[in-house]
């Protein structure tokens, strides 16, 4: 049987992501509550019982990193979902219809696009307040402009191709042309956009949490852990090291997935072989 041909970079990315997921799932085996404080363990270094050490409240950093990573990924996942759905919808409408629809929606997107995503997310967080749901919404909305711009250019390109004209000639409804005929032909850009957006979301979420406007304590994300560890960078470097390493590996994993040869090409090769 033919197998999907992936580049080594993509394979490495998939392995890293799977390891990250396993790392989060292992957190369910770790019975220490993520917010259990123990004064005897305050700033205790890595040991067999607490491999990542303990923080300034005596909480297990391994458990907090696992739960923090889970929350960060969850927020990013739903943010990317919001950004993907609305970004694709707006981009598809702008690119396919052009004219007034494009002018109107694109001018709104252009205004939002001119503001950096993190700043945009900050504005939305200050509007909606802080919390997991609010942060997810804010990040999701912040992704929409870049996503819709990418999708707009792809749909604009595709609508001129003859298979779309053929679909029009056989009276396929417009919504079906957009999402059943054209969308599968832009998967290359679509999937890469998702991975890049996911990376940006993880970073933006960490940034918001680092500034203290992300999720509320006692919940923690990777950004919160880094923020909390900031004062102990000399006395307890492991407090920074492990959450930072986790964040870097996660970003590296998604970065590797979005770079190099696309999944589409790898998929096509499978058929050619």
């Amino acid at each position, binding site marked *: 049987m033919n197998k999907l041909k992936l580049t080594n970079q993509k394979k490495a990315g998939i392995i890293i992501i799977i390891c990250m997921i396993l790392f989060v799932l292992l957190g369910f085996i770790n019975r220490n509550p993520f917010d259990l404080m123990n004064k005897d363990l305050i700033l205790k270094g890595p040991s067999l019982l607490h491999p990542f050490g303990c923080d300034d409240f005596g909480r297990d950093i391994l458990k907090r990193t696992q739960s923090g990573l889970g929350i960060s990924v969850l927020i990013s996942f739903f943010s990317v979902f919001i950004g993907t759905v609305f970004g694709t919808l707006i981009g598809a409408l702008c690119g396919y219809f052009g004219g007034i629809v494009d002018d109107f929606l694109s001018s709104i997107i252009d205004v939002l696009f001119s503001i950096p995503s993190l700043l945009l997310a900050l504005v939305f967080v200050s509007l909606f307040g802080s919390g997991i749901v609010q942060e997810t919404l804010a990040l999701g909305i912040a992704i929409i402009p870049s996503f819709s711009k990418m999708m707009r250019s792809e749909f604009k390109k595709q609508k001129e191709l*003859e298979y779309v004209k*053929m679909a029009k*000639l*056989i009276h396929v409804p417009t919504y079906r042309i957009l999402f059943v005929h054209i969308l*599968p032909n832009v*998967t290359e850009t679509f999937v890469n956009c998702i991975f890049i957006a996911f990376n940006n979301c993880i970073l933006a979420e960490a940034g918001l949490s680092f500034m203290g406007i992300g999720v509320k304590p006692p919940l923690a994300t990777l950004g919160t852990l880094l923020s909390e560890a900031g004062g102990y960078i000399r006395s307890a470097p492991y407090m920074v090291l492990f959450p930072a390493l986790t964040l870097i590996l996660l970003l590296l994993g998604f970065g590797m997935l979005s770079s190099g040869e696309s999944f589409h090409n790898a998929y096509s090769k499978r*058929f050619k072989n």
Partner: protein
Amino acid sequence: MSEKICEIKNLTYMYPKSDKGVKNVNLYINKGSVVGLLGESGCGKSTLAKCISGQIKIDSGEIICGKIGYIFQDNYASLNPKKRVGWLLKETIRYSCPENKDKSDELIKSILADVELDENVLVHYPNELSGGQRQRIGIAIALLSNPDILIADEPVSALDVTVQKQVINLINKLNKEKKLAILFISHDIKVVREICNYIYIIKDGEVVEEGDCEVLFNEPREEYTKNLLDSSYLSG
């Protein structure tokens, strides 16, 4: 007298900010006839076909046509590369002749037989088929909508000579067996002479001469037509 299946009256379409397009074109196509549109590249043949099929909104004129099936020039670009042939044919039935949706499998079998293709092409993607097979799929899609007239926009120009012959034979067969009217567009004079009964010569978007195929080839009136035919003899 044969029944007119398509009539174009004073059709004009000019591309925006350009002097290119089609000007004041009048033509008709009888049931069961093969009408050729002949002219050099860029003279407006495809534009006229797009106007007739509704792909381009015309500036003025009148188009009175039955149901149209359209065969594209580029058989590779006209088939969705991400969909299997079976899916493409079913999609055509679903939207082009929804009344036959329930018997789509039988319809597909009979259409594939008409275009002389094996049923195993259904599971393939367009890029896995040869140029000739793809063009036959394009013809099958055009036929599925049960058209009164088939517009073939340079259907053989992207194919090699042997496959060209096969596709021309197929179009001839469809014309004879199904009494299908065909508007055949080409810049290849030999192909047009082989397949068409009646010919319109187009120059700069205007019909400069028309007539029965053999009459026009043997006794061309216009200088442009003479030059066009001479160029074909020169090229062998």
